[in-house]
């Protein structure tokens, strides 16, 4: 497999990420911004995996694994934000 195919996919994915920055700008909720960060994280896992094949560097897989494992942190910390009273009530009624 010629590596320029992988390189082209990497460029496409990064361009995708750049367009996704618009949602980061628009918001309007914090949740939307966490969502975009989530998408960027996954995109980067793919990018790192592909780059490891292009440059023939085996340690890129380790990097991809770190990125994949820690991708949940934005959502995890976002979830910890103190819920307001209405949220509490809603949860208790579930």
């Amino acid at each position, binding site marked *: 497999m010629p590596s320029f195919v992988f390189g082209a996919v990497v460029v496409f994915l990064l361009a995708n990420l750049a367009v996704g*920055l618009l949602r980061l700008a628009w*918001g309007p909720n914090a949740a939307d911004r966490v969502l*975009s960060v989530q998408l960027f994280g996954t995109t980067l896992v793919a990018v790192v995996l592909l780059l490891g094949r292009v440059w023939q560097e085996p*340690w890129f897989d380790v990097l991809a694994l770190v990125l994949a494992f*820690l991708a949940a*942190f934005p959502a*995890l910390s976002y979830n910890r934000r103190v819920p307001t009273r209405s949220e509490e009530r809603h949860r208790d009624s579930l």
Partner: protein
Amino acid sequence: MILDWLVVVLLVILSLTILLARDLFWVVASFITFGLVLTLAWSSLQAPDLALAEAAIGGGLMTLFLIDSLGFSDPEQTSSAGGFPITKLQGLTALGSMIVAVPLLRAFWAGGAVSPGLGPLVEQKIELSGVEHPVSAVLLNFRFFDTWFEMTVILLAIVALQTLRGRTPRGDSLPSGQSDQVLTWFARLLSPVLILFSVYLLWRGKHAPGGAFQSGVVLGAALSVLALTGYQDFLLRSPVVSRLVVTLGVVGFSGAGLFPLVLGGELAELPSGWAGDTILIVETMAALSTGMSIPYLLVALQVPKDKVQCEERTS
């Protein structure tokens, strides 16, 4: 090359976003993305250790600290205190930094005399260091002092935070998040794997990218996941032991640094035959203490609310 340009453009856009954005969450989300893209920059510069550390800190742990602080701030203020009010002083600063930028960039791109750097020297002496990976050799042998005082800085940060926080009725625990089946299972699945992975990174550091700090940071991520999902036993069961683990890094480095003095050598001159073993022990201690430090930093960040409760109790 196209890739480098894309990464550079993304980095500059994101830093400008951080400068100009009004919404606080936008700033923080841009900063997280900035950290993620920076990982690619390190990869492109062939600095795998930096990429690993940046992925774990910029993409993971800083998120935790920053969003935790955001949850504390109230919404009205977030929107009002944004803006970009340009006073005379700030205008001058902007002008000044642009004036500084031109010669800096010129100097950087002019190139000129290129020194060979310290790379060849490290390559030449690496057999004496006891490890095979050059970055680990520099970190734990040739520039032992840097890492020694790095551990001290982390410990000092925790001591300072604990002092700020004072004694609290609930000890070293996080205000419990919502306990929840999905989160519980997530923690049960993820944290053992993460801990195993951190041990792998530690072992790898001897001959390949990886090592005490990357390992410690991943361990810290595992422990924070546990603390955030309600498994706080490792903090609460025996607080003295957990605090001792936090100090392990400084203890290990001080021991390895001072011991050669007893044998009649120089300060921090690792004994040549035993360097490899000493480094392994010191690295393990450093990784454990870095890992334990991170939930402590997170706990100690919860200053004001605990303070309120304390003040209410005393009055």
